[in-house]
């Protein structure tokens, strides 16, 4: 078969199958879409019949990740006016599982200017012990007086690290002189 696209699709299919992807999405996220994604995920997690404790944890971290990229998208939209398909405000996320854990991955574009500050935030979080994370969370929360509705201040990242009990795995890839691509991977042990 010469049709390259269909071959690509089979490749995607197999790769998702092999990696046990429960749900994946690429595109622009709207508030309605976010609601649907959360609804679908919740149903799927219930069918997987995981312990409710783990189910809640996965769901909770997923909410945080998605709302993070959702709010971040607003900022990106202010930056650019590309057409929707090629838009840098479009994001990707995946939820997958293996025998030991669930994993959540998200990817989005970020302005090159913001790479170093985000790196600092994550590196700081990754250095902290559980107890230190707990006090850092409280510190950021109490200092967040007058904080924007978007959360900001990295409280979401601290929460993800705390709830997952794992380090935040992340990567930046060069895109062009203005943007980088930010990927994050969070594991939740079963």
């Amino acid at each position, binding site marked *: 078969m010469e049709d390259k696209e269909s071959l690509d699709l089979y490749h995607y299919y197999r790769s998702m199958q092999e990696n046990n992807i429960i749900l994946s999405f690429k595109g622009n996220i709207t508030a309605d879409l976010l609601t649907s994604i959360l609804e679908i995920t919740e149903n799927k997690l219930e069918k997987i019949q995981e312990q409710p404790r783990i189910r809640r944890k996965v769901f909770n971290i997923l909410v945080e990740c998605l*709302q993070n990229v959702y709010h971040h998208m607003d900022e990106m939209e202010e930056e650019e006016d590309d057409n929707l398909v090629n838009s840098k405000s479009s994001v990707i996320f995946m939820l997958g599982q293996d025998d030991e854990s669930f994993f959540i991955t998200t990817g989005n574009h970020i302005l090159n200017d913001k790479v170093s500050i985000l790196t600092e935030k994550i590196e700081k979080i990754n250095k902290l012990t559980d107890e230190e994370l*707990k006090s850092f969370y409280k510190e950021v929360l*109490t200092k967040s007086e007058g904080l924007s509705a978007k959360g900001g201040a990295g409280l979401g990242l601290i929460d993800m690290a705390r709830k997952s009990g794992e380090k935040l795995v992340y990567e930046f890839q060069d895109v062009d002189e203005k943007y980088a691509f930010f990927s994050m991977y969070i594991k939740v042990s079963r």
Partner: protein
Amino acid sequence: MEVVNIEATLKSPKVLLDKDNSTFEINGRSIPENTSEFYAPIMDWLKEYGQSPNSQTDFQFKLEYFNTSSSKCILDICRIIEEMKQGGNDVKISWIYEEYDEDMLEAGEDYEAMVDVPFDIVMVKSEDEDLYK
């Protein structure tokens, strides 16, 4: 005072604020994108209630989970209750969590440490039957 009675949705908790029946509770999940919009009427009501509260106030949180932007609003509610205590009123916060839910237990402990209000952290049996399968 008017009763605040907000039904739960997929993203927001059930809220019942009823001065006459002395019921003050937030129940369920709190993950709206725009938390300040959701919580604004609740804050307004509580501030007004704080002007002349009942002889005892037991504010109940029974949360399944909440996003980090809600965590700020929850702290603001606790702060209003703290102000009522500073004004010499008999207040407490009941933080109810389901038995396996360590994250919500920890969240309760966080708030207990952040405000000067008596906290009852109460464990209840889960309503989720899957737990016993």
